[in-house]
């Protein structure tokens, strides 16, 4: 596939990620910070997020499962951090689920928390797959450019 076609694919995928609400403006901001000296900045941030988020998810699960007395304050703290991280790179849907979760927390609604958390993990995994594909495509298009 030639360069133009690859670049077109990249642009299309990017557009759909935005149109479908997976990413928001903050992702743009990060891409704008990329230059020759920092060509993979966005991918680095995303990689960092996903290496960190596994820990969050684990902590939250531990704090929720099989607990007679849920520490909602702690849960909220974890989710606050998680929300902050996802919002820093524009993970729109993930961020939304985080907000939802926090609402359930403040209402002491454990059922809601569990349900929302399930949805959160889904969005988290989906975005990861999509971004992996996206970055792969970007690399291919970049390599094609250099030839």
């Amino acid at each position: 596939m030639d360069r133009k076609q690859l670049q077109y694919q990249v642009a299309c995928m990017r557009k759909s990620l935005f149109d479908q609400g997976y990413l928001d403006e903050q992702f743009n901001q990060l891409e704008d910070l990329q230059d020759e000296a920092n060509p993979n900045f966005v991918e680095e941030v995303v990689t960092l997020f996903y290496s960190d988020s596994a820990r969050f998810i684990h902590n939250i699960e531990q704090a929720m499962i099989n607990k007679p007395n849920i520490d909602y304050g702690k849960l909220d703290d974890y989710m606050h951090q998680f929300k902050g991280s996802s919002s820093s790179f524009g993970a729109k849907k993930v961020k939304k689920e985080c907000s939802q979760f926090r609402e359930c927390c403040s209402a002491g609604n454990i059922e809601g928390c569990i349900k929302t958390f399930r949805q959160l993990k889904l969005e988290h995994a989906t975005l990861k797959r999509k971004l992996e594909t996206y970055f792969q495509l970007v690399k291919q298009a970049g390599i094609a450019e250099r030839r």
Partner: protein
Amino acid sequence: MESGAVHTQQQEEEKQKQQREEEEEKREQQKEEEEENFHVLAVDDSFIDRKLLERLLKESSYQVTLVDSGDKALEYLGLLDSIDNVNATSSSSSSSQSPQQEGMKVNLIMTDYCMPGMSGYDLLKRVKGSYWKDVPVVIMSSENIPSRIRMCLEEGAEEFLLKPLQLSDVEKLQTHLLKSPEKYSSIRIDDSSFNTESSSVTVSSKSNIASKRKALSPEIEERRPKLKGLAVV
């Protein structure tokens, strides 16, 4: 022939001298650039936010030092030990009136509000009660809580920024920096041990901040991918 050999030796010496002078010049230049570029101390417990901050600040030609807690920030500023600012590892008198001439400067402190342990607000108070009190402090938070914002501003914060941060937020800090004193010297501390990240001091090849103005709005609003020669239909 004799004269030929001497000539070569002279040339060699000349060359070495030139090299030394060039190196000296380079060092001077680096030093100058370091002094020209504003130095920001950024405090945030989130790994991602630190990475973002670093990129944003370096993009704006600032030197950056990143730490992951209020305690580390105080340590860096030499404020950790006590209210009296007596630091055993540093040199003699930690005078509260006139900081010593040589040493580091901090032109701006940026801190997250919500951090485990010491909050950004607590850090703000500590800084404002020290000889760093004239250094502008900017608080960052992901939560837009008016009473929180008010509280920080009342305590002397220069600005309250909502996360996630964007380049335009950092760019507008320039006005705050230009207000602050040129240098804020302190007892020289080996600051390489403080950095939570691998890179801190950057000698930027970009020129002095005052003369550098980025065309903001077109860039920020541009939503097209940064790929050349592409038309998205």
